[in-house]
C-alpha cells in the first residue's frame, strides 16, 4: 500500500511537472506546478519528513504560487500559442541536453551504491529545530539577512515601478 501510494504520487509529481512544458496558459501551468508541489509534499511525508511536507504546502503552494497566480491575474496574461512555444532554434538540442543531464545525474547519484534501508523512520520537527538552531545557527542568521535584503529589494523595486 505504502509503495503504491509513493509511486503513484511520484508519477503525479513528474507528470504534472512535464505538463508545464506543454500547456499554453500560464494559469494552467501554475496549477500543474501546484499539483506537482503538493504531490512532492506527500512524498516528503511518506519519506518521513512531516515538517517539510507541511512547510512545502504552506510556503510553496500557499504563498509562492499564490503570488504567481496573483501576478498572472494582474497582468492578465493570455495563452498565446505562437509566442510561448519553443524557441525557433528548436526543441531537439535542449531535449538532448536534458536527456544527457538526466543520465549523468542518474550515474552521479548512483555512484555509491546505497544499501536498502529497512525503515524510513520519521524525523520529528523537534529534531529539525534542534539541528537548525544548533549547528546551523549561522546559516539561519544568514538566511535572515538574505530575506531582509530580498524584502528591501522588492519594496524598492515596487516603489520604483510606481513612480
Amino acid at each position, binding site marked *: 500500500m505504502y509503495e503504491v501510494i509513493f509511486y503513484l504520487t511520484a508519477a503525479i509529481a513528474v507528470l504534472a511537472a512535464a505538463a508545464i512544458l506543454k500547456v499554453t496558459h500560464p494559469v494552467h501551468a501554475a496549477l500543474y506546478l501546484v499539483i506537482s508541489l503538493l504531490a512532492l509534499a506527500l512524498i516528503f511525508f511518506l519519506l518521513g519528513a512531516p515538517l517539510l511536507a507541511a512547510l512545502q504546502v504552506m510556503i510553496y503552494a500557499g504563498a509562492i504560487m499564490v503570488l504567481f497566480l496573483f501576478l498572472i491575474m494582474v497582468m492578465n496574461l493570455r495563452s498565446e500559442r505562437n509566442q510561448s512555444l519553443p524557441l525557433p532554434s528548436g526543441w531537439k538540442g535542449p531535449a538532448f*541536453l536534458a536527456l544527457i*543531464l538526466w543520465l549523468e*545525474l542518474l550515474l*552521479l547519484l548512483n555512484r555509491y551504491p546505497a544499501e536498502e534501508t529497512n525503515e524510513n523512520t520519521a524525523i520529528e520537527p523537534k529534531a529539525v529545530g534542534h539541528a537548525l538552531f544548533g549547528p546551523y545557527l549561522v546559516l539561519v542568521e544568514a538566511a535572515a539577512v538574505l530575506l531582509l535584503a530580498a524584502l528591501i529589494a522588492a519594496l524598492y523595486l515596487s516603489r520604483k515601478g510606481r513612480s
Partner: protein
Amino acid sequence: MSQLLWLIPGAPMLSALIIALLGGLLQRRHLAILATCAAAIAFLVVLLTWLAGAATSQPLQQTLYTWIAVGNWNPTIGFTLDRLALVMVSVVSGIGLLIHIYSITFMAEDNDQRRYYFFLNLFLAGMLILVLADNLLLLYLGWELVGLCSFALIGFWYREPMRASAGRKAFVTTRIGDMSLALGIFLLYSQFNDLSLSYLLANATAQWETGSQLATLTALLILGGAIGKSAQLPLQVWLPDAMAGPSPVSALIHAATMVTAGVYLIARTYPLFELAPHVQWSVAAIGTLTIVYGASAALAQNDFKRVLAYSTISQVGYMFLALGCGAYALALFHLVTHAFFKSLLFLAAGTVIHFSGNEHNIHNLGRLDNHSPLVRWTFLIGAASLAGFPLITAGFYSKEAILTATWSAPAGPLLWAFAAFGVLLTAVYIFRVYFIVFQGSRSNASTPSAPGSMTWPLLILALLSLIGGFVEFPVGWLAPHQWSVWLEDEFRLTVHPPLEIAYSLQFITSLLTLIGIGLALVLVRREQAGHYLTKIIFLRTGWGFDALYQTMLIQPYFSLARLLKATDALLIEGILHKMTHACLLLASACRRGVEHGVLDKSIAGLLAGFRFGYARLSATQNGLLSRYALMISMGAVFLLSYWLW
C-alpha cells in the same frame, strides 16, 4: 579608560545612524552640527586616552560583543588601542574633526547635506573601526565601510555622469585590492582557524619559516589589498579621478586617512612581511616607482586638485618605501606629517576653488586676483612642507628620515636615488602650482573673507605642518629622537647608515629641494611664456594608465567580436566574393576541373568557417535569456561529464 574605547568609532556611527533615520526631522544646519559634535566626541575620547596615559601604558582592550559563536570560532567586536593604533586614531579623528568643521561652511549651500554628513560620519566610523579592530574580520568590515563611503562621496554629485563614473571607477579598482585582502584573510583563517590579530601574528612567526611559500602568498595578498586602498602602482588609477568629490572629502579620504589604510595594514601585519623578504622588498620597489610616477604625473597637471591627487599617490609611495625598508615607525611618522600638510593643501585649494566659482584650472586661477593672503600663506606653508623645505617644516623631517633609512636596505642606493629624484620633482610640481596660482595675486579689498570655520582648520593645520616634525630629528643630530624610541615597543628600531653618509644624504636632499623650487620658478616663467608642460600628454594622463587598462583589459573582448564581424562583412561582401568569382572565372577558363573544385571548396570553406565563428561568438551576446541558460546548462553538463569520466 578601556571602557570608553567603543565611543571612538561609536559616536560617529551613532550620529550617522541618527542622520540616516531621523535626519529628515532636523534642519540642515543642525545636521552639520550633529555630525561635527560626533567627530568632536571621538576626538575628545582620543585626547582623554592620551591624558590617561595610553601613550605609555600597555595596549587598551575592549571586547564589546561576540557576533556569532560557532564551534570554536568566536569573531568578536573588539577593539585594541596600542601605540600604532593610537597614532592612527589621533590623526583620523583629529583631521576628521577639522574637516567636519570646515565642511560646515563649505557645504552650507548644498541641498544634499543629509547624505553628505551621513557618509562622512560613516566613513569616520569605518576608518576608526578599521584602525581599532583587534581581529581581521572587524578590520575587513571597517575596510569595506570605508570603501563604500569613499565610493558614495566621490560620486556625491552623481547627477553629473563624469563624477558618478569616477565613483564607480574608484569602487571597481579598489575592489580588486579588497578581493585580494579577503583572499588573504581566508588563507590566514584556513591556516590558523582564528582571525585575532595578536594570535595570528604570534603564531605565524612561530610556525612559518622565513621565505616559506605560504608566508609569501599571504603577504602578497595583503599587499594587494594595501595597494588598492592606498592607490599604489598599478592600482592607482582611481585616485586622480576621485577628485570629483567635494574638496573636504578629498582632504579627508584621499589625502589624510583612507589612502593610508594600506600603510596601516602593512604596519599592522608587518611580522608577515618580515617572513617574506621578497614581498617586503617589492613593497619598497612599488613605493619607489610610485613616488616617481606620481611626482612626474603631477608635474603636468592643469587641474588644481589633480596635482594634489598625484602628489598624494607619490607621498604614500614614500610610506610604502619606508615600510619596505623595515622603517615602520618612520612610515607612520610620514603618514602623520603628510596628513597635516596634505589636508592643509587640499583645504586651501578647496577654499580657492570655492571662492573662484568652482574654477579648477590653475592657469585660470592664476589670472584671478582675489586670493586672500591667509590662504596664500597657509598654502605656501603646506607646499613647503610637502616639498620638504629644510629645517622649518614637518615634511622635511619625516622625508629625510625615510630617505636615510632607505640607504641601508637591500639595493638601498638605487631606491634612494629614485626617491631623491622624487624629492626634486615634488618641489618642482608643488611650487609650480604655487607660483602659477598665487604669484600675481595681491590682497585687494574685494577679497571675500572666508568665515572662521574655514580659516581655523587652515591655521591649525598650518601650524602642525610646521612644528609636527620636531618629534624626530634626523640621524646624527643632537636633538631628540622621541618618535622612533616611543614606537620601539611596537616595531624594532630602524637601521641607519653610518653617520657621515647620513649627513651627506641629508645635505643632498635638502639641496635638491632648493634646486627644485628654483626649477619651478624657471618652469613657470616658461609656461607663462607659452611653453606649456601640459603638452606632455604622457605625463598629463598619468603615464597613460587609463588608456592602457582600456586597451589591455576592456577592449579585447569587444575588439574580438568587432574583428569577427568586420571580417565577416569584408569577406562576404568584399574580397572573398570577388576572389571566388575571379577564381571561378579562372578555373572555368582553364577548364581544370579538379583545381576548380579544390579552390572553390577551400575558399567557400574558409568563408563558412568565418561565418560560423562569427555567428557562434555573436550568439553569446545576443541577449536571449534562454540562450544564456542553454549555455550555462551546456557548461554544467560538460563539466559533469568530464568529472564523471
